[in-house]
């Protein structure tokens, strides 16, 4: 960072208020948690601010925090959720930043209803394919994405394979799955 992590976080908080919902500055890669509704505004600010200039989106990843085994789940120190992690970097400042959006595993707790997060494909075009991949494999719906369809799995595939409770289909077009 050009400025210290704390100063940067304070600056973001004063600008976006409660849309910055959390942060961990002591992690290996310090991250900032953003509320889904504020994501696009925060990203546009990060890209356009002449001091920050995070012009490249390196990666969008989905992580599913869910332990199918109930015995193990009791010992865990986190609740079930899905994270979408954005790794940004600035080519001119040689800095990097991690943003996180924390979502429920299913929208309104109804299994099958994908959680929603606004798409940042209008901010960085990289997000177009990356969000399609996260949708395909992790089952996160990116609202406002121009063309949200599966990218790695076939179009008629059922389910989102990187979910921890995903089960392989018994068969797919006559091919044995399990």
């Amino acid at each position: 960072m050009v400025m210290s992590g704390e100063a940067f976080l304070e600056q973001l908080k004063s600008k976006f208020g409660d849309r910055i919902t959390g942060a961990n500055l002591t992690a290996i890669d310090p991250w900032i948690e953003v509320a889904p509704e504020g994501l696009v505004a925060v990203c546009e600010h990060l890209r356009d601010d002449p001091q920050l200039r995070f012009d490249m989106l390196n990666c969008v990843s989905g992580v599913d925090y869910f332990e199918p085994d109930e015995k193990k789940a009791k010992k865990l120190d986190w609740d079930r959720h899905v994270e979408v992690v954005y790794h940004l970097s600035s080519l001119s400042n040689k800095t990097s930043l991690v943003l996180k959006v924390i979502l429920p595993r299913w929208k309104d707790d109804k299994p099958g209803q994908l959680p929603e997060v606004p798409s940042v494909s209008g901010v960085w075009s990289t997000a177009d394919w990356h969000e399609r991949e996260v949708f395909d494999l992790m089952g996160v719906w990116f609202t406002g994405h121009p063309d949200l369809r599966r990218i790695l799995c076939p179009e008629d595939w059922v389910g989102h394979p990187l979910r921890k409770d995903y089960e392989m289909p018994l068969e797919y077009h006559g091919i044995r799955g399990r």
Partner: protein
Amino acid sequence: MSVDFTIQFIATSHKAPTPMATQVDDPRIIEFDVRTDEMLVNMGPQHPSTHGVLRLVLRTDGEIVSETTPHIGYLHRCAEKIGENITPRQWIPYTDRMDYLAGMNMNLGWALVVEKLLNLELPEKARHLRVLIVELNRIASHLVGMGAYGLDLGTFSPFLYAFREREKILDLFEEACGARLTYSYLTVGGATADLPPGWLQKCEAFLDQLLPVIKEYHTLLTSNAIFVRRTVGIGVLPREMAIDHGCTGPVLRGSGVNHDLRRDGEQRYTEMYDGYAFEVIVEQDGHYPRDHDYPPVPKQAVLGDCWHRFYVRMLEVMQSIDLIRQAIDRYSTATGSFGEPVKLTEKLPKGEAYMETEAPRGQMGFYIVSTGNGAIPWRARARSSSFCNLSVTEKLCRGCLIADVPAIVGSLDVVMGEIDR
């Protein structure tokens, strides 16, 4: 393309014309009404010039491509799902199979990110060994990129010459680790073995022999009139678009962006190259660093076109030769061991780490998440460079000729194993 020939006959007699009587006295009265329709052309997934199983659906009007839709996923092998069921060292062979032309670079990317999570420091000798090996693999990878690009544009011989030299690199690798394609040589904590005795001399002899050959390649392709006309001014990628789409590696530098992770990356990665002298290959004022021995930039060339991307790769081969020479010196005088691989079931601390390295095709990123329960990561994610590089195809191919599509896709030098993972 559908062509309608409408031939109008003027009856020359009162009889209806029989098929035999279709001779035309006046050629001017034949009216060719050539109309073209929009047509969808399916290119791939088994097309020789799509570099693996890439399928492009082209919407064409005559020879002009108005829309290109890439379809990927034919080589999807669920690497990320497998990664969250095995330990990081067990996942090393899966990274080999991502960019299978640069297995060493993939091993390194994953090894570094796990070391970042474990907060592991490497002995000096291991670092120089890694530089030596990954730069050698970069040469092998760029040679294939060059040869295959020649194939795309219709010349066969550079491919054969490129494979001749690559074969020697594979022989060196085989001697070092036993494998010729999927090495699993660099691993978490160092490498699996030290270089065998006499290996460095063989490597040096190979570099001496490679240098004059590179000039032949330049004569064969870079300054070849046909090659120049097929690549100059085609598929121009402006720097803003390259950054916006997350293009990296030679594709980004071919657009004039001065960015190379070996110099600008994270400290854990750049310290590997500490003290090495090298210049980032990028055009400045119409010149590339130390290009005086090589063909000049053609006058018609536009920064960001296919020719520039190709030329950056060719010069990176020279850069890698330099780096290997320096690495050989340092490696032979370095103290310490070649590194000790961590236990197969090394317990991972709670946390997450992300890191990118400069692979031959661009920035290869890996992301590991661990919840601190045992040796198996909670999530293993690979950010592929070719994946982002390929996503510009749609914009680059808009309005180009069908024959230029292989030239553009080839200049991005994608490897499908890495895109589909």
